[in-house]
């Protein structure tokens, strides 16, 4: 019987939740990597037992951990991430020049075909790749060398590369997003990069339509339609039907179009999910009601999904990497909160159940559908 594995990264450790295909009974693992921030925990599509974790804390820095048995055992692999010099500085938010410096890995994206190949998004914003299972890492230096990079700004949080999307139909095309610069695409496996932010409007930068400077929180695609991208921006939910060449707003009737996560139904490419947050200063759900919103029309028209979610006194957030879907039928949807709860829906969002609670602040949720 098929099953589901939910990989949960938290501020103090990681957990693995498992269930059979019915997704009604969940088993929570013991904590892994106790005492470490797990920015991202993810698995290979090519080999579901190959997992990777980005493990960090401010005492000891960055580790990458790898599992070959679905998370039963782990081994540290390479943590040498070198940002070569000679590119110049970027401008800090206070206007002072900042030297590029590796700080931590925010996101790991395994290759769609090779379990030993994995991409990593770093703070300061840089993209790395390993082709030997995480032992050695090489930077895509030309991304940081892009002429716009001197105008990338860290905002208040960090200047990090937090999203990586691989085009399943074109191995030379991938998309990345940098906070707070925007989205970039390569069509030649990282040799050249193009900002793809036309149509984004951001009132917090001097030119709201600028080429870069947009705070993109998350982008997702459906694997059958890689030219269609969905974005949750700092404010605004957006879509692109031309691989990011242009974007249009699809926030429609959402109660707030601020938020961090967005995801796509596994079998319905026009069904998408967001979790609205009240505002940039009030990181909790509007009216203190935890609601996921679903659009079956690729945006514009949204319906609240509330059954099983707390509808009063709820002040949690859902961070950018903390939502995922399985590929069972009906599609399962999962998300984790800053209050340490993991919610799951086994029916495309119609109803929700609490599968874990009282965990540390949840930083990431990834979902694996097991054979």
């Amino acid at each position, binding site marked *: 019987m098929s099953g589901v594995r939910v990989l949960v990264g938290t501020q103090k450790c990681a957990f693995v939740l498992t269930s059979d295909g019915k997704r009604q009974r969940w088993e929570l693992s013991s904590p892994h990597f106790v005492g470490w921030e797990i920015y991202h925990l993810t698995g290979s599509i090519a080999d579901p037992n190959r997992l990777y974790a980005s493990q960090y804390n401010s005492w000891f820095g960055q*580790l990458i951990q790898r599992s070959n048995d679905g998370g039963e055992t782990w081994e540290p692999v390479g943590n040498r991430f070198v940002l070569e010099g000679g590119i110049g500085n970027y401008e800090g938010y206070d206007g002072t020049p900042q030297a590029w410096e590796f700080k931590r890995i925010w996101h790991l994206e395994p290759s769609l075909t090779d379990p030993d190949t994995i991409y990593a998004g770093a703070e300061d914003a840089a993209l790395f790749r390993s082709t030997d299972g995480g032992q050695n890492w090489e930077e895509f230096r030309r991304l940081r060398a892009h002429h716009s990079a001197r105008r990338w700004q860290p905002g208040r949080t960090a200047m990090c590369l937090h999203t990586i999307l691989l085009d399943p139909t074109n191995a030379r095309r991938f998309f990345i997003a940098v906070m707070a610069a925007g989205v970039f695409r390569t069509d030649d496996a990282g040799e050249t990069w193009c900002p793809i932010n036309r149509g984004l409007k951001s009132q917090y930068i001097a030119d709201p339509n600028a080429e870069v400077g947009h705070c993109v929180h998350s982008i997702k695609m459906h694997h059958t339609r890689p030219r269609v991208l969905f974005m949750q921006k700092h404010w605004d939910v957006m879509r692109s039907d031309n691989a990011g060449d242009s974007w249009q707003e699809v926030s429609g009737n959402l109660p707030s179009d601020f938020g961090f996560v967005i995801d796509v139904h596994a079998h319905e490419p026009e069904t998408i999910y967001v979790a609205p947050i009240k505002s940039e200063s009030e990181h909790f759900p509007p009216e203190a009601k935890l609601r996921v919103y679903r659009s079956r029309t690729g945006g514009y028209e949204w319906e609240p999904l509330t059954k099983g979610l707390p509808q009063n006194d709820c002040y949690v957030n859902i961070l950018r990497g903390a939502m995922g879907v399985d590929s069972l039928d009906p599609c399962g949807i999962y998300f984790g909160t800053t209050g340490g709860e993991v919610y799951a829906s086994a029916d495309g969002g119609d109803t929700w159940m609490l599968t874990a609670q009282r965990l540390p602040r949840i930083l990431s949720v990834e979902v694996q559908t097991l054979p």
Partner: protein
Amino acid sequence: MIRLILPAQLRALARVASEVELRIEAQATQRSVLDALEAQYPALRGLLRDRVSQRRRPLLRFFACQEDLSHEPPDAPPPQAVASGAEPLIVVAAIAGG
């Protein structure tokens, strides 16, 4: 023989229960001690000092013989009691509250 006491999280990574004993062939220094530690326990590479700059991680301190040796040059010899193995070199992580 150099005796080294690591913070609990690093002991877990290195899979050691208590002290680490390191054999240093040449003159013991902070640098040679860390070189030997990373050679013996590759999982600890980059965790006590930055992998590129080789600078000590700012939230770690090196103590021995009731002295703070953190700011000693990396090639300075440790106290004789540490070099002889009579006293351990202690790696301490900064205190953190919540």
